[in-house]
């Protein structure tokens, strides 16, 4: 039996050699296990840059970032713990905690991948938990940043930020799951500037989230902070506009004519942008999107109204430029053809604007369209005339996309000959078919921002800059180059005299907007009352002020409340007072406006 000791020794040696070969294979030959280990232990941690701050034109902070905390759990590290205490400090119920923990280990979550227990806790919510967390192995906190709106105004204008959706990730592959992206407003249109550049930190990380630098951080890529953006908004004016528009449906657009900078963009009813933050976002968003008053709909840029009487300004200028009329042209107020109001009979252009004489502008449009350019066929004549008219009207920015930096701006509609061909058939329509567009009714559609832009054109006597919401990209930067580009509308500057003079009279004794008059500032405006059957008319007013050195142009729409001079004009007047004087003297006027509630009309 002596020899058998050698058999045993051979067995032991054989096993040892097999094991050593296997270990050699695992450790030295194969790269596979090292790669997997490195992937597990060395993490590329994305360092999120802080998103740029949005300021108002006076450098007041409109949107900034705030740190919030996600409470995470890594199931494989969880030891039995005191659930009662845990629930007490986190204010979860036992059932909630149970279902969260169950979800954390249910496919596609697995025991060794972290899941969120509570998302987006504010620092004051996290503080009491932070000190206790060490008692609960496997639980740890992760910091994130959220947008906050200290001024609580300008929700739609400023926009919001949210996690990228699947479809957005397909469109912009540089975004990864969990990244945030601007979804609307300035946040969306200046996303590239605001977001900054992500950095990468290489760390050893254990399951408890404790991290150590790899190679002393020499491989790390620093995150680049987002660019700050100075918006053109005057937040006081914006807030005042929102206040005046309380309990009313409609909008206010205020633009600085000399630059095209939007001073205020009020869409009412509005909401506190902070509602769409944090954990309450889901429920609040749902409630807002279901609200019958449509607070998420930006009336200033997306609502397409018929322009009504305020369109007569554009009509006057176009007819003058096309040579269809002169400022001396008088047309009888023939109310058999189209309705009118007030007492006047044979106005010239200026007084026709002041009186908003419908038969006069019907006559003007007739001269434009039936220009006798094709004397043999009045259908073809109308076609040529309408084409000429449309080309000029569109130069004011109607029927096209004003190239603003506001996402989702609507075009409106300026009917073309082809449009009527489709509607009535070729050579089956002439002026008498389409005359309602002469007073801004019928098929015409404009957005409030386009109407305000018209006021800018008049204030500037013939040109405008595309309206925009951002004054400077970077605290010492410039606006985007396209906003420094002057757009000429192709109207002889002298034709503006008569229009401006008429607009001055509108806000004067006997004018339709006399109630909007200010003691020390000359306002030039035009009221409009847009038919909206069967409901009450929309009250509309466009204006600019002061007359000689225009600093602000406005368009005000108040839905379903009646005559333009009664509601829209005083609101515009109060806005001008706020912006130019920084104080309201017409307290009674303000009180009267604030008391009104048109929401249920």
């Amino acid at each position: 039996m002596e020899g058998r000791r050698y058999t045993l020794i051979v067995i032991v040696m054989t096993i040892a050699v097999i094991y050593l070969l296997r270990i050699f294979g695992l450790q030295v030959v194969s790269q596979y296990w090292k790669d997997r280990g490195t992937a597990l232990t060395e993490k590329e941690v994305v360092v999120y840059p802080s998103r740029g701050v949005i300021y108002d034109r006076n450098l007041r902070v409109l949107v900034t970032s705030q740190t919030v905390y996600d409470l995470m759990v890594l199931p494989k590290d969880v030891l039995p713990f005191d659930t009662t205490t845990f629930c007490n400090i986190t204010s979860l119920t036992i059932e909630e905690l149970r279902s969260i923990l169950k979800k954390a280990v249910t496919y596609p979550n697995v025991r060794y991948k972290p899941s969120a227990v509570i998302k987006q806790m504010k620092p004051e919510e996290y503080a009491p938990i932070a000190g206790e967390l060490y008692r609960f192995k496997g639980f740890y906190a992760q910091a994130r940043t959220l947008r906050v709106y200290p001024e609580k105004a300008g929700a739609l204008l400023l926009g919001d930020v949210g996690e990228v959706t699947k479809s957005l990730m397909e469109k912009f592959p540089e975004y990864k799951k969990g990244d945030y992206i601007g979804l609307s407003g300035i946040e969306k249109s200046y996303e590239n500037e605001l977001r900054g550049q992500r950095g990468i930190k290489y760390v050893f990380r254990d399951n408890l989230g404790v991290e150590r630098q790899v190679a002393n951080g020499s491989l790390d890529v620093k995150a680049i902070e987002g660019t700050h953006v100075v918006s053109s908004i005057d937040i006081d004016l914006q807030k005042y506009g929102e206040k005046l528009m309380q309990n009313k449906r409609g909008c206010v657009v205020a633009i600085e004519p000399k630059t095209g900078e939007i001073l205020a963009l009020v869409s009412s009813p509005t909401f506190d942008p902070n509602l769409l933050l944090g954990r309450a976002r889901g429920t609040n968003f749902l409630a807002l999107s279901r609200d019958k008053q449509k607070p998420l709909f930006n009336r200033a840029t997306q609502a397409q109204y018929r322009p009504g009487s305020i369109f007569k300004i554009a009509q006057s200028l176009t007819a003058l430029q096309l040579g269809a009329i002169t400022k001396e042209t008088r047309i009888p107020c023939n109310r058999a053809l189209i309705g009118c109001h007030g007492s006047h009979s044979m106005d010239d252009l200026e007084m026709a604007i002041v009186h908003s004489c419908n038969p006069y502008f019907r006559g003007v449009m007739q001269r434009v369209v039936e220009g006798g350019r094709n004397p043999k066929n009045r259908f073809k004549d109308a076609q040529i005339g309408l084409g000429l008219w449309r080309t000029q009207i569109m130069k004011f920015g109607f029927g096209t996309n004003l190239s603003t930096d506001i996402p989702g701006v609507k075009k409106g509609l300026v009917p073309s000959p082809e449009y009527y061909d489709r509607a009535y058939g070729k050579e089956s329509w002439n002026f008498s078919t389409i005359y309602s567009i002469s007073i801004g009714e019928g098929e015409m559609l404009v957005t409030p921002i386009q109407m305000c832009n018209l006021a800018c054109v008049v204030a500037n006597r013939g040109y405008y800059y595309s309206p925009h919401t951002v004054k400077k990209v970077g605290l010492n930067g410039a606006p985007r180059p396209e906003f420094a580009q002057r757009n000429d509308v192709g109207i002889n500057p002298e034709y503006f005299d008569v229009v401006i003079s008429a607009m001055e009279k509108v806000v004067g004794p006997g004018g339709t907007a006399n109630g909007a008059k200010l003691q020390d500032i000359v306002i030039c405006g035009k009221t409009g009352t847009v038919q909206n059957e069967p409901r009450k008319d929309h009250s509309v007013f466009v204006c600019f002020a002061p007359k000689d050195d225009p600093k602000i142009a406005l368009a005000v729409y108040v839905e379903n409340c009646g005559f333009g001079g009664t509601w829209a004009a005083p609101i515009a007047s109060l806005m001008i007072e706020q912006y130019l004087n920084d104080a309201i003297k017409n307290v009674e006027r303000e009180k009267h406006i604030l008391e009104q509630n048109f929401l249920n009309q």
Partner: protein
Amino acid sequence: MSRSRNNSAVGPIDWPIIGVWIFFVIFGWMTIYSAAYDAAHPMPFDFAKEYGKQMMWIAISILLAILTLYIEGDFFAKFAWVIYGFFLMLLVLVLIIGKEVNGAKAWFGVGSFGIQPSEFSKIGVGLVLAKYIASIGGGQLKSMQSRMVTAAIIGMPAGLILLQPDVGSLLTFVAFVFVMYREGLSGNVLIVGFAAILFGVLSIVTGAGTADIPFWGEQSGVWMLIIVLVTLALFVLVYARNFIPPRNRRRMYLIVIIGTIAASSFSYSVSYIVDNILEKHHKERIYVMLSLPVERKDADYNAEMAKITVGMGGVMGKGWLDGPMTQNNYVPEQWTDFIFSAVAEEWGFLGSFILIGAYVFLIIRLMFIADRQRSVFSRVYGYCVACIFFMHFLINIGMVIGLAPIIGIPLPFFSYGGSSLMAFTLLLFIMVRLDSERWSVLK
């Protein structure tokens, strides 16, 4: 010889064995410190951590070792049955008042400490086996009666351990088969054992899939294995006969036919047991080891993490306290059964080589020591010690490197745990003491 005369209490001690034991204990403690390291408790004597407790177990073990060296070797032979009986009683007791840990009633709980009698029971089995074989004369394990008696000596504690149930500890009892082989058990036992492992693995691998068998349809893949076996056997019966002298043919037919029937029914049984009798997690562990697909996503988590941890080591290792997998606790309870992975990661292939070399040295040195004994009792006991260490080494390291299924048994002197350290120390130092008396004692 002169030393034994000079010092009547302790004869010439085998210092290489003592040296390798010290190496294991120190290296083991360092690895436990690294695997369980907690920045909040860096002190080695912190009893809140495993390394602090292990310090205490080491101190106790040193006392036990010294004590053992001062006990006459005669005592162990005389009291072999008493020791055996005492531990057998503990094994019965643990089933009644034991604490259930991981589904096995294997522990006596004493406060936050636990004692695992199955670790100690191997000492009793070794001593009694040695005493019995010595009584029938060494190398004579041939009669049916002697085999039955040895089977009973091993079987009683093994059966009690199966009742706990602790499959890992049970498997280490296979060590005694090697001892019996050394003492005259037919070598066919080893061949049959090897064939059993081969066919077991084959049947599990084939049984995991299905095969489309003509005229029979879709069946468990193990049937394919059986068909191949039978076909091979027929082939051998028809053609191989020409190469066998006629007088041996009858014998060959018998071997082939019985072998085929045995292999086929064994394969089918294994496949059946794995599919229908084993608990799901046991089946999963076996599948993981054989790289077969497993349903549950993280069933192979421990096995994967252990392999990654070993792989991370490279040639020179990541350095003590610097293994990213070890320091970041990717291997659950790494300081117990998976401790080798920490050595491999932090000391690399070099460290693994030295450690495996040390175990091979320990085992072969023990066999060498056993063979130089003049008493059968000491020799058999020495082989028991060597083979127990070998089984632990075989299963534990095989498990870590993915060559054996995940079976929770400690790596001798290395894994954290008082019971195993004390039991292995006693096991080893009884042999050291017996060896020191080899000139003066003849049994």
